[in-house]
């Protein structure tokens, strides 16, 4: 019984670590590149866009999609590893 509880705790810890990693990226591309450092990045040209403007209006959204799918795959693997998948 206690090993089962330990395993559940370990599963949750790994889940939290995955979430935190992805949330850091989520924050960096939107609030970082799109808002806080937008003017600095605008000095760089990227396919005809100032880079900061591109992140704010396009790039951040693409990264959001990638993050959700990365989370889907990470969690599917984690669910298998701890044998809690459906």
């Amino acid at each position, binding site marked *: 019984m206690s090993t089962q509880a330990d395993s*559940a705790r370990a*599963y*949750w810890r790994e*889940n939290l670590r995955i*979430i935190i990693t*992805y*949330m850091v990226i*989520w924050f960096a591309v*939107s*609030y970082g590149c*799109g*808002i*806080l450092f*937008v*003017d600095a990045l*605008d000095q760089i040209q*990227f*396919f*005809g*866009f*100032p880079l900061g*403007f*591109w992140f*704010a*209006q*396009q790039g*951040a*959204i*693409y990264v*959001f*999609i990638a*993050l*959700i*799918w990365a*989370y*889907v795959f990470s*969690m*599917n693997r984690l*669910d298998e590893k701890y044998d*809690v*998948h*459906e």
Partner: protein
Amino acid sequence: MSLDLLTYMFIGGSFALYIGIAIWARAGSTKEFYVAGGGVPPVANGMATAADWMSAASFISLAGIVSFMGRDGAAYLMGWTGGYVLLAMLLAPYLRKFGKFTVPDFVGDRYYSSTARTIAVICTIVISFTYVAGQMRGVGIVFSRYLHIDIEMGVVVGMVIVFFYAVLGGMKGITYTQVAQYCVLIMAFMVPAFFLSMQVTGHFLPQAGLGATLESGKSVLVTLNELSTELGFDQYTQGNKTTIDMFFMTAALMCGTAGLPHVIVRFFTVPRVKDARISAGWALIFIAILYTTVPAVAGFGRVNLIETVNGPDNTGVEYTQMPAWFKNWEAAGLIAWADKNGDGRVQYQAGDAFDGGKPMFSEGTGEYGERMTENPSRSDNEVYVDRDIMVLANPEIANLPDWVIALVAAGAVAAALSTAAGLLLVISTSISHDLMKKTINPNITDKQELTYARLAAIVAIIIAGYFGINPPGFVAQVVALAFGLAASSVFPVIVLGIFSTRMNTQGAISGMLVGLGVTIAYIVYFKFLGGTPDQWLFGISPEGFGTVGMLLNFIVAMVVATLTPAPPQEIRHIIEDIRIPRGAAEAHVH
């Protein structure tokens, strides 16, 4: 074939499709009515979520907002998409595992308190009604502009359609009509965008076209910047808002998105926890197709608008020579012109053309046949353009074929109806399930509950229709309120409920009350009691203040929870259970 006939065919055809689906997908039990039986495949749920989420505001208004705000429009673009990352990681899988029907269900059970449940019900209903009034209005505008019937009549037609499939089909009917509506609305948005992009830049993909170089040798964005500065606007790719305001506004929109009950409830409809995550991924892909196109439509639309109105040499075009769309939208009251320098030419530049921003039309027409107004301002700008017409007028401005224009009209209606239906369902569920069944009379049978749900849906549609016909002047203002409420009340309470085993009733209730109170007070003060922007706290606009409310909610909840007794053991078991995916299917049957 005339444009009117084409528009009737497109809108009529799409309505026939929705009704057909509604009849095919009737709901027979409360479970089918509330969560479509819990058996919706994740791709379909992703599409339905996208249609549910993309309202008249996304379809009609967003490109206009970005077009007129330039880079600052990113707060909406990132805010309304980034929320899905929060949903996928922090909310959707756990709420699916919890396996009930509504957001107040979770709040009430997790915090073992009917007070907490009631606060959640009130938030849900207020948020949803705020939203739905705008949708009905959107339907009305499209009908009146394209089918030349009164806005009132348009709203009634919209009500009848929604009534049909929301009341009959419940969540099951709504889900499959939303899938169809997504297809209609995305086609309607993308086809003109492809045309525009080809026309302006020669690139097929609008996302790439916005960065392209024009025949003049300058890129689209450089051209926009030059046009904007020439006319006295700020540079298009430069921000106008302060960094702190952008930050808080984006955060409020993101967390608000993740806390909107009609979005959350969509994740209750999939069979497994895994599917909740996957359908968030699909939903964002389907949403991003539109959202990444919006900046391009906004940019091309702005170039086209300025060049058409001011003419190629930028001296203005004679009013009598203006294309038909200009006069059509003038007739609809969304464009106005006052010939201030008396040269008979239309000149557009920065500044409010009319005192107070919007024109007030008087009876009669002027020298050139233009509609007379009572309040031309002293600014040299002669033209008022309502930013809501950007998407609808774009195909006409760019001279696209009539069938594209008809398609756009059908798409706008699909966007408005799909969101309205999702919201109405949430309202009716809150009343029949959370209030009737869980709070007032727990002894009613499944059949009775279903009848209550249908009655509540009928009443909600009638109220929404009333607001659509007699729009309260504050619809635009209260949208900030809807997101502020969701961000400062629903979102923190759910996240804490999942991620903190220590969070208890007292913490949740005090957090919600503080978050709500602060946010509502701030928004009401600045939107209704005449507060001015120089009084903004730390320079944060009312749209962004939901973030402050949310932070206060988190802090107060955690402090109060540590000072009061921990939640009982069975609540700890609930939390441990929702964190593990296995067993979601069984969890759904209670």
